[in-house]
């Protein structure tokens, strides 16, 4: 797949969600380039397990920089169906591409309408420029 930031939906807390195929009901979740730049010097990421339930707006993992620990909030509710475990060992790749290569989990959504509550690219850009 090839994801561009314009296609994504965003949380105010800088996570993104992308639905490649609406009929699958599966959202791919990651964090934005803005978040990666803000965090800097990432050293660790704690990920959920397969089958774990996540809730929109609730913590599903954490990312740690040299400076601090930041929670990761899920943009959508559902069940974790895939975890990008290899990412933990190549957090540097988030600096290069936080979208395609930098996806974190995939979630089978329990309520796809939650996507409508997320920010589109323009609105998210505005938020980041504040």
């Amino acid at each position, binding site marked *: 797949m090839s994801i561009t930031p314009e296609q994504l939906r965003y949380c105010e807390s800088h996570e993104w969600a992308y639905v490649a195929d609406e009929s699958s009901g599966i959202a791919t979740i990651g964090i934005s380039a803005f978040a990666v730049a803000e965090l*800097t*010097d990432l050293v*660790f990421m704690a990920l959920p397990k397969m089958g774990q339930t996540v809730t929109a707006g609730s913590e599903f993992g954490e990312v*740690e920089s*040299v400076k601090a*620990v930041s929670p990761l909030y899920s943009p959508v509710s559902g069940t974790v169906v895939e975890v990008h475990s290899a990412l933990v060992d190549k957090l540097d790749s988030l600096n290069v591409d936080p979208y395609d290569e930098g996806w974190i989990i995939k979630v089978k959504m329990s309520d796809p309408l939650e996507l409508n509550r997320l920010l589109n690219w323009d609105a998210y850009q505005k938020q980041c420029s504040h």
Partner: protein
Amino acid sequence: MSSQLSATPLHAWHHAHGARMAEFANYEMPIQYKGIVAEHHATRTAAGVFDISHMGRLRFDGPRADQLLDHLLTRKVLDMQTGQVRYSLVCNENGGILDDVLVSCLESPSGKNYFLLVVNASNRAKIVQWLQPHLADFPDVEFHDVTDATAMIAVQGPKALEICRPLLPASALSLGYYRAKVTEQMSKPCIVSRTGYTGEDGFELIIKSEDAPRVWENIMMAGRELGVQPVGLGARDTLRLEAGMPLYGHELDEAIDPYQAGLGFACNLKDRSFVGRDALEQKSKLVTLPKRVGLILDGRRAARQGAEVLDADSRVIGQVTSGSFSPTLDKPIAMAYLEPAIAVDGTPLNIDIRGTCVSARIVPYTFYKRALSL
């Protein structure tokens, strides 16, 4: 806490150079420019320049200034020679640590000796207030808080000397470790000391506020070809942690005594009388209090201040006071206070990091020691 934040004389420079700013001890300070790890490595391999103007600078003039300070500091002051710097603690009557400081014995251009106390930014107001009754006992000692009138810049790293070579007189460049001198930086009055808080060789400069931007630019220019980087408080913290240096509010506070902190060397009890002395004498004999240790953790995740340290039976045996990912060791490191029976190098234990148990082992807290070049 609605009071407006103070700014150092270099505030505009930090802003103009993309620093991420945050509040520290009521100052708006640069936390990082390029990033903590890049700035940390620059300091270890070349040199870092730090705006440390937020540190408190207190000046004591008069023939009895040494007696006043000798009465207030755990370290002997009466025998200090001109040009000498000492690390000391300020303790309360109970032997609890009020602050850790550097005291310098300096000679002004007019040939008079005076003392300078550099205190933690977060403790400056407390120390100044605490000084008042003691100053009243020494009415002939002139006291000035010169923090706002001055700025302080640290140049630290293996290239610090080379960078300072075109900027400072030979007499300042040849200062030994923990020596200081009143001199000039390109005709601007300047106190230079061979001190620092990074574990590297280097200098700390105190200049007039209005001269600070010029002196800072001079250092940046002189160091450009040598890889100098501006360094924020983020890397200042990782650098001092690797060097095993305590930070007030983390390893030190009023409930901790110097012996627990491994700072017994800074307490000269013999044939002296100073605030807290008798309490310290008692404490020096106690062997049951938690003591400061270093920890190296497995994995990549750092334990932060307040994380609980557990023994093999999951019993809480202490708490982490500082922790971070160490850029030099490429591992998470921490300092903690542990029960003395357990605080033995090599002992394996666990740390509770927000509900996850991470294994760790006790090591000397000097995680990093630079190779000494003679």
